[in-house]
């Protein structure tokens, strides 16, 4: 088919589908006056709900107060105040999912208290879709051309990925040892700010905590994923999974994933522990 005809066909299809969408929107709003009033009030068209959801997830501006003002529906639980004796898991909602701004703030304070680290769900305006989600097991990543699982020396039975990580050969062995994968591809602005975001996320320091046992580890982003259909939100290197003790069963366990605010990279990669002087040290 000549290119000109094909372009006309596509434009024609686009116009017809837009008309169908407009008709269904009109039907929706004319059938339900309350919905019409509501959407007008919030300045949103009903078909834009996915874009709106993406913005909410990216900004973390969940309307927690709005949710909590509807007592009939226990959508999200209120996090209790920070008390040292409470396990960190008690600060999390019962269901895995995006946290509210308040929940993230409380967790940041608790992390500072427990580990002496500055870690946040939002850093320099960047935010993952979820800061509390499921982490799955990843294989070793190639550090250089010709790298093998055996050359990693530890957990070689986990294998090595046939392809490269999201940022190519990892290079730094410490980064590979303690790497995580995050879902950068699903960030709402990934397609429009790819270059900036790819650079920002490359080897970005992340603090990962297993809320079930309180174990925490400083990691670096070196791969993108997992795919959304896996039901997992993050991936962890064999060493990360092992240290956090989530390398059992289906290897699909909840973790807290916060950005480490450490511009000078003074905090080394690897496990962190709390000691009596409120100083972290490598174990």
């Amino acid at each position, binding site marked *: 088919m000549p290119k000109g005809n*094909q372009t006309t*066909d*596509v434009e*024609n*299809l*686009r116009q*017809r*589908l*837009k008309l*169908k*969408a407009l008709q*269904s*929107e009109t*039907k*929706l709003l004319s*059938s*339900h006056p*309350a*919905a019409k009033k*509501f*959407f007008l009030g*919030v300045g*949103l*068209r*009903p*078909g*834009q*709900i*996915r*874009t*709106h*959801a*993406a913005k*909410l*997830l990216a900004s973390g501006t*969940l*309307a927690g107060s*709005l*949710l909590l003002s*509807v007592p*009939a*529906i*226990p*959508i*999200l639980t209120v996090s209790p105040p920070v008390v040292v004796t409470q396990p960190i898991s008690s600060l999390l909602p019962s*269901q895995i*999912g*995006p946290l509210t701004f308040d929940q993230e703030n409380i967790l940041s304070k608790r992390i500072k208290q427990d580990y002496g680290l500055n870690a946040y769900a939002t850093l320099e305006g960047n935010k993952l*879709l979820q800061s509390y989600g499921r982490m799955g097991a990843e294989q070793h990543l190639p550090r250089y051309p010709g790298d093998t699982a055996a050359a990693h020396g530890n957990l070689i039975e986990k294998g090595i990925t046939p392809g490269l990580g999201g940022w190519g050969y990892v290079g730094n062995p410490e980064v590979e040892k303690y790497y995580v994968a995050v*879902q950068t*591809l*699903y960030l*709402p602005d990934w397609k429009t700010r790819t270059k900036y975001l790819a650079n920002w996320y490359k080897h970005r320091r992340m603090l990962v905590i297993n809320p079930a046992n309180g174990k925490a580890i400083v990691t670096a982003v070196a791969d993108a994923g997992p795919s*959304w259909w896996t039901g997992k939100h993050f991936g962890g290197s064999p060493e990360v999974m092992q240290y956090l003790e989530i390398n059992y069963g289906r290897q699909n366990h909840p973790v807290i994933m916060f950005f480490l605010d450490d511009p000078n990279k003074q905090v080394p990669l690897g496990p962190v522990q709390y000691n009596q002087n409120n100083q972290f040290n490598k174990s």
Partner: protein
Amino acid sequence: MSKIFYDHLIVIDDVLIELERHKLTALERQEILGIIDQHVHHHVLNAILTHLPKEKHGQFLNIFHAAPYHKDLLDYLKKEVSEDIETKISGAVEKAKKEIIAEIRKKK
């Protein structure tokens, strides 16, 4: 990747297969899928509001707007709607899909 609480009820593989015949560029495909997504949401929202008691519309819309992805919304609808809301949503998706596929198959 943003999720809506009823996304698991939306399966549009057959629409995607129909679209393949148009040899769309990535950008064209993205735009058209966006329009299709809007159309499906209109149908689904219409079905939900049709079956949800009117006095609950404001409450539902407020929560849906605040957390469109929250799984508790489906439980809420199951509680408030006397009929099987998942079947109603799936039915709305099927209806929207039929309309879309018919448009895609039209010659001009």
